[in-house]
């Protein structure tokens, strides 16, 4: 008869951690599913969002007094970059609309690809 192998000295501790994780998650999920939790969490979230909003406004005024670009300024630059990007996209689209023979010199060609002839190893055996 095979003998019982000696136990790993840390296996009990590992098992305890695993059990602790499961039970804490289970208990927490139960309490987090209550109306009370949802209400409190959203009150805190709302207050935090409001505080962030006020903070952003105060920071914008502060940056203006230091003669530094505000978030709005950076956003505006971002929007202009976005607009340039959109224009570039349209230019590329126009180039792509050229006949292939004329376009080859203008736009980067796709890498040479292997032939598209592959078939599954068991033909006709799609699951």
């Amino acid at each position, binding site marked *: 008869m095979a003998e019982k192998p000696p136990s790993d000295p840390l296996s009990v501790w590992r098992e305890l951690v695993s059990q602790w994780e499961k039970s804490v998650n289970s208990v927490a999920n139960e309490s*987090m599913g209550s109306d009370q939790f949802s209400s409190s969490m959203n009150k805190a979230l709302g207050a935090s969002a409001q505080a962030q909003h006020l903070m952003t406004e105060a920071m914008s005024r502060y940056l203006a007094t230091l003669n530094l670009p505000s978030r709005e300024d950076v956003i505006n630059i*971002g929007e202009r970059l976005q607009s340039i990007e959109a224009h570039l996209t349209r230019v590329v689209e126009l180039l792509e609309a050229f006949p292939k023979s004329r376009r080859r010199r203008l736009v980067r060609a*796709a890498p040479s690809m*292997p032939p598209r002839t592959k*078939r599954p190893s068991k033909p006709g055996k799609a699951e």
Partner: protein
Amino acid sequence: MSAAAERDQTVLAERVRLEIERTIRRGIKGVEYLGSPAAVVGQTPKEVIHKQGTLNLYHYMPMSDEIYRVPILIVMATSNRGYILDLAPGQSFVEFLLKSGYDVYMIDWSTPSPDEKRLRFEDYTLRFIPECARRVRERSGEGELSVLGYCMGGVLSTIYVALRGAQDGVKNLVCFTTPIDFRGMTLFRKWSDQRFFDVDRLVDATGNVPSELIFSGFDMLRPASRIASQIQLWDNMWNDEFVKSYRRFERWGNDTLPLAGEYFRQTVKELIWKNALYEGTLELEGRRVDLGNITVPMLHALAEHDHIVPYEAAGPLIERVGSGDKQQIVLKGGHVSIAAGPNASKRLWPRLDAWLGGRSV
């Protein structure tokens, strides 16, 4: 002392010696861990073939002498980075697809800029994805493509295929862990209860919804798991492979993206409050999103232990689509591990290949 007892004592002594050695190595490796740079991820060679604000379209370089005719366009979830599907050589779904002979493209999202707070479902499903599909068709020279969406990427793909699949040449639709019936997302639904959650106030105040909020939402689903995983890391600190893998997943988990404000508002109001996608009442630009319009072959892979998108939320998708050729598989694993965990290469990936290969010629 009997021979058996003597043997037990020797084995136990060896085990204790091993634990002492590991404890020493944990100390040394732990110090190294704290000072080491972030894990390298997403190494499979690729080219960014299109970028527009938050949208990035990658084309991965082929790794096979012969490829299937129909290319695949992967649509990543909007809240997370696409490198979860390309963590490291040998642990990369993308690499697996390339080596299996697929021509792979991916829509990956980056942090939306403040002015992109206006992006809506309409932008993602009727502009971004169709534009990428057009580029994939043009670059591959093929009139058809397969679309594969992961989590919310699956929601966007489903909406896209329902509205434009036929005209855009979508040949197959594959979804991983895609929620459709939001009544099944019990905790998210509870936390965003209309009586307590003022989504307008949040979005109006923040513009784009901060990544910290999204991250906390996921983290709160299993509040003890972060601590438990750190204990597990310490326990395995002596094991370089474990630590490397842990760091890649940790990096990805912390790399949660903010969500475009209007898109978040629509998600809460339309998908969570009204359950409009499931009910068939979602309208985008005056067109009703009817999942019955999806008639292409479809595969939906679900995870047995998915705590983010439980079976109740994802299961009904397959019933709702109009495809005659459709299949749902439920595999062991969690929301992330099903697609990117060490066992994905034995479970999901070969199942997908077996299903998709015959439909990609």
